[in-house]
């Protein structure tokens, strides 16, 4: 039985780190073997395979480092009255910022779930959710990295841009979380350390998130308790669809519009509806 509480979750993170280190070691050994074959046979195929293993090794190593950092953060977490530090906080840290968020997206690039390191990055995800435009959606739709800074943010996304700038962000980088034949969503990093978005570290963190956090052997798409599925928003959409006699998609749009117009977080707006404090129809 897993020990509950911060020391139990820290121990679990240490275990995941050890597993990821082992997988990284194994992949490095396989890469070395292929490099040896390449030397012996002179065939470029072995070099290609070696590269594949090197890439896997880097992703596992990066995952191990994230888990180690997460364990350290949980171990030094002093105030049990507050919620535990989210896993995304170590992802943000590795990118040289305090603000990073991950969005799991549906095939229409709409948000299905979200996890954020702090309040401002969470607010940015909410804006993207409510307005239906923004870097995560663009990165997933185009399957490419999106980097926008300064005044270009407002030019690119008229609604989202001004609101996210008002949160105090001057730069946003979003990368798709790609699988061999699809895309799970995007990682958005706000005001990253200069240069990091173009570095191997960033690519390795993204790979690590896909390979080992979301899909791998130790995968937990709940990000160890940090993922929000917006259950209340969907419950509210179901309610409003009956009250307003409209399709659930329209009800959801109505809730988002109302939240944006009133300047209230969409989850809060939904809570008011579910608790009967507000009727949209």
């Amino acid at each position, binding site marked *: 039985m897993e020990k509950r509480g911060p020391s139990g979750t820290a121990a679990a993170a240490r275990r995941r780190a050890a597993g990821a280190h082992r997988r990284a070691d*194994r992949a490095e*050994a*396989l890469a070395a*073997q*292929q490099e040896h*074959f390449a030397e012996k*046979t*002179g*065939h470029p*195929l072995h070099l290609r*395979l070696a590269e*594949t293993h090197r890439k896997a090794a880097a992703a596992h190593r990066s995952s191990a480092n994230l888990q180690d950092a997460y364990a350290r953060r949980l171990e030094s977490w002093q105030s049990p009255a507050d919620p535990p530090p989210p896993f995304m906080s170590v992802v943000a840290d590795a990118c040289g910022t305090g603000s990073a968020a991950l969005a*799991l997206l*549906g*095939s229409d690039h709409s948000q*299905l*779930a979200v996890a954020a390191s702090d309040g401002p990055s969470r607010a940015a995800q909410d804006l993207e959710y409510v307005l239906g435009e923004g870097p995560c959606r663009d990165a997933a739709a185009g399957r490419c990295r999106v980097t926008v800074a300064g005044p270009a943010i407002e030019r690119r996304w008229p609604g989202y841009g001004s609101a996210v700038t008002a949160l105090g962000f001057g730069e946003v980088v979003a990368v798709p979380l790609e*699988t*061999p*034949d*699809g895309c*799970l969503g995007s990682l958005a990093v706000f005001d990253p350390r200069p240069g990091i978005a173009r570095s191997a570290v960033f690519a390795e963190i993204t790979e690590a998130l896909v390979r080992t956090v*979301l*899909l791998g052997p130790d*995968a937990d*798409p709940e990000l160890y308790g940090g993922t929000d*599925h917006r*259950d*209340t928003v*969907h*419950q*509210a*959409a*179901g*309610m*409003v*669809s*009956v*009250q307003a006699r409209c399709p*659930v998609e329209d009800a959801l749009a109505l809730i988002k519009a109302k939240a944006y117009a009133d300047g209230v977080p969409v989850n809060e707006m939904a809570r008011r509806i*579910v608790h009967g404090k507000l009727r949209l129809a």
Partner: protein
Amino acid sequence: MTTPAQQIADVFVELSGGTAGAPLEVPELLSTLARCSPRLLGVRAAGAVGAVDDRAEPQVAGSEDGAQLLNQEALKWREGPGADSRRSGRPLPGIAFDGQAARQRWPRYAPRALELGYARAAAFPLRTGERSVGALVLLGSAADAPVSEEKAALAQSLADFTGLVLTRDHELHASRALSSQLEFALNSRVIIEQAKGVLATRHSLTMDGAFALLRGHARAHRRLLSDVAHDIVEGRLDLG
């Protein structure tokens, strides 16, 4: 005698899916290995067995009918050089089937191999890191010379290469399955929450009460919760 480098290179290219680079499916991969090995390694026939996943049935291929048949029987009997090499993860150098050792080790396989015209065998595990995911079995007739050290090294490289391709293919399938499971789980959760909202409003229930109603209906009708939820949200079904 050395094997021409070009010929070796061609086999590696073929195993990795040809110049088009599209990865081979597992049965094609094993049959390519079995088909290319005899000429390259100077033996009469070859067989390949692959089992990357413990839960799945191992697959076999042979360069000729006899080798294919022998391989299938080896699998059924859990005997033979391929089975032993796969289990131990170590190559088995040439073994003659008419010797006392072979008959004791493989009471059914050895006589059957002789009957099919094979006098000796060598086996090489398809290794991938710490595990072996299959084996390459070289089969010689009485007239064939034993496999030389140089050919054995080449056979092991071919086997390892095939092991790598097999594992990569397996990982790709596993990753596809995982990502579609994740997407399904995320979408189901959305539709179920929406259905709870619909039922709660229609029947003046709490969210927990709405979920109980939904789950009860799904169980009674042996349907997926998410399918029932879909019908409710789209107005095709009302409970209560």
